């Protein structure tokens, strides 16, 4: 058996990962994923090892709650066969490996740049010269949007090929947000600097990425967190989910020109994020989660306050959501708009809401549970149609589910344990992988340490890395005027993708 099976947040020695030749590595990983919807690739990356490139592939198995890690050493002068030719879900991972190291895949459909990373292999490739797909036809026209969009959102370029008002094809080009975060993780040596970086990966998922980084770091340092630390993290993750889902419902209403829903959901986000500020001093939860400590212990006074907030929030949210879901003019814009089939979601390796909307059960809270999720016995919310309506329904039901989890959690607060911060140096020559279900979906961080226990390589994967392709597929054969609502109903991260 040339792979090692680990649990979420487990640290192993790098030498424990069995190394195989590329032929075996290729066959085995394809074999693991192909025809197995319960398995998918959570991370696949390369790093420099002498003059060669070491590839590490991480396949999560949701039924056994294990992650299967395999590795392979390749010489970049040699052309490789691409996984993508067999399984589309590896498409972006291989493009990234090609962009960073110049490894050539002979049968990859199109090795386009992913984000024009600062550490890319070929610096002559610049973002202004992105090779868009185009169709030569007198009937078709192209529409280019971005990188700067009409609203207050992050930059990215969308290139549509349209037949009249109908979209035939959409290509999404990203990379504008690239800040070199993975390199900074190595360069910045202080733990607080790294924690600050983690919460800046995607500022709307500050809790999600901070918890993932904290789990990686604590596992590398063999630090056992007390119950109250994980209690706060679970609570923060669910509050972040409510805040953003409600904000997204507002955005969706804006995009179908439903003013009342837009205003009411927009303002309903405020009591939740204002509570987060009352708890940790920042509306977007920056500074709330730190490795190895409970930065802002959750007190019974805070629990009482949160209960008050939810008691007011819940009926107001329900009233608005019931109205929205009974409005024919809104539903007619949601239903059968922006459909992604289950087969497509599976083939591209969609995660989080983008998977669950097509009845593809991917939710780390139940498949690789962490923090308090084993106690909560989380049941993922699944929809079948894969359209805007499914995505809106998931948000509504997840908000209701998160409220019930929070009520359950705060009925019995974990007492604050004053724990000596004994974060030792990370274990040398090690590998750690951590998975967390943020509000968008699965977040995966991998860390590698060198012989002195220094961070040698840090790999971040935001769920958007998988899901941008789902958005591109969803708009095919839709009217271009429905693009905004499709985009908003996914609400993917630009900065989390570009890093």
């Amino acid at each position: 058996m040339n792979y090692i099976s680990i649990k979420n947040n487990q640290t192993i020695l790098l030498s424990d990962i069995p190394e195989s030749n590329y032929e075996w590595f290729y066959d085995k990983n394809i074999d693991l994923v192909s025809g197995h919807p319960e398995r998918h690739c959570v991370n696949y990356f390369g790093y420099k090892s002498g003059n060669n490139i070491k590839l590490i592939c991480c396949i999560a198995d949701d039924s056994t709650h294990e992650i299967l890690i395999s590795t392979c050493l390749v010489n970049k002068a040699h052309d490789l066969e691409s996984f993508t030719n067999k399984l589309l879900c590896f498409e972006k991972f291989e493009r990234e490996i090609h962009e960073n190291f110049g490894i050539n895949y002979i049968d990859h459909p199109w090795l386009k740049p992913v984000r024009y990373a600062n550490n890319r292999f070929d610096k002559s490739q610049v973002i202004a010269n992105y090779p868009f797909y185009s169709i030569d036809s007198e009937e078709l026209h192209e529409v280019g949007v971005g990188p700067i969009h009409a609203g207050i959102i992050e930059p990215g370029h969308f290139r549509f090929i349209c037949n009249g008002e109908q979209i035939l094809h959409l290509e999404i080009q990203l990379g504008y947000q690239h800040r070199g975060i993975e390199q900074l993780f190595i360069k910045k040596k202080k733990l607080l600097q790294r924690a600050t970086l983690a919460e800046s990966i995607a500022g709307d998922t500050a809790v999600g990425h901070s918890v993932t980084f904290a789990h990686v770091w604590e596992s590398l340092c063999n630090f056992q967190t007390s119950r109250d630390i994980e209690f706060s993290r679970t609570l923060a993750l669910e509050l972040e989910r409510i805040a953003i889902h409600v904000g997204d419902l507002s955005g969706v209403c804006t995009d179908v020109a439903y003013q009342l829903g837009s205003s009411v959901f927009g303002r309903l986000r405020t009591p939740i994020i204002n509570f987060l500020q009352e708890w940790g001093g920042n509306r977007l939860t920056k500074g709330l989660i730190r490795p190895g400590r409970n930065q802002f212990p959750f007190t019974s006074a805070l629990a009482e306050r949160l209960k008050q907030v939810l008691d007011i929030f819940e009926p107001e949210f329900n009233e608005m959501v019931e109205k929205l879901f009974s409005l024919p003019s809104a539903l007619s814009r949601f239903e059968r708009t922006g459909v992604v089939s289950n087969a497509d979601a599976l083939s591209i390796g969609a995660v989080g809401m983008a998977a669950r909307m097509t009845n593809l059960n991917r939710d780390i809270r139940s498949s690789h549970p962490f923090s308090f999720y084993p106690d909560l016995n989380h049941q993922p919310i699944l929809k079948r149609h894969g359209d805007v309506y499914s995505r809106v329904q998931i948000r509504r039901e997840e908000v209701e589910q998160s409220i019930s989890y929070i009520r359950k959690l705060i009925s019995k607060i974990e007492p604050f344990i004053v724990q000596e911060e004994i974060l030792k140096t990370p274990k040398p020559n090690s590998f750690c992988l951590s998975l967390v279900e943020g509000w968008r979906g699965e977040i995966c961080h991998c860390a590698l340490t060198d012989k002195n226990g220094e961070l040698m390589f840090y790999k971040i994967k935001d769920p958007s890395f998988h899901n941008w392709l789902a958005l591109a597929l969803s708009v095919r054969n839709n009217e271009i005027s429905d693009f905004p609502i499709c985009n908003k109903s996914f609400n993917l991260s630009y900065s989390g993708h570009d890093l």
Partner: protein
Amino acid sequence: MIDNIKIVYHQGKQFIPNPTTVEVPGVFRGRPLISREKVNETELLDLCPTDAITDNPISIDLGKCTFCGECARYFPEKISFTKDYKLSSNERNRLIIKEGEVNPIEVNPDTVRKEIHRVFGKSLKLRQISAGGDNSCEWELGASNNVQFDMSRYGIDFVASPRHADGIVITGPITKNMAEAVQICYDATPDPKIIVLVGTDAISGGIFAESTAIDRSFLEKYPVDLYIPGNPAHPLSIINGLLDLTRKH
């Protein structure tokens, strides 16, 4: 119809009557105070993730500060964060808070460009550019115009095109990959125009200041009219900053 009226009725009055005087709830890390207490300065300086704290005298540069509060946690007798959300100035140096300083941070009316009050005093339309922003300042800029903060009551709005704008608002440290787009957007905005930087990342690069993936040369070419610190900037910081800049005192 009756449902709609019920919903509106149940919302009650949501708007904040006066965003220039309202108090923020709970804990908030706003303008810091630095006492003259003697502490181990090396340790204090070493704590800061972005080197925002400097010595002789001990001071905090809010243009670099991530408002993480670590310094106040370990040196509570030296540093405390007040709930004052008025953090903006038109002068970069005014963002540096020194030991013993208790005065509020203000826009200096003497150094504000003459045309700003006259042209933008009653109406200001802005084009926002996210240039490596992590979507936290973007959320807060959006929140500035929700029904609670309601910035448009002052005639301040965000518009879709730079052609309709009186200035640009930049968030994020300005990545190399966005540098050209920032320049094009600025060039497309008609004169007279202002530049506003929102958030620590935009003002100094923040935690990304040393990254080789950013390119801040745009900011060397043009004068910045307003700095709004925060990580992210609070909607009240944003509204008060823009009002201080454009309204007569």
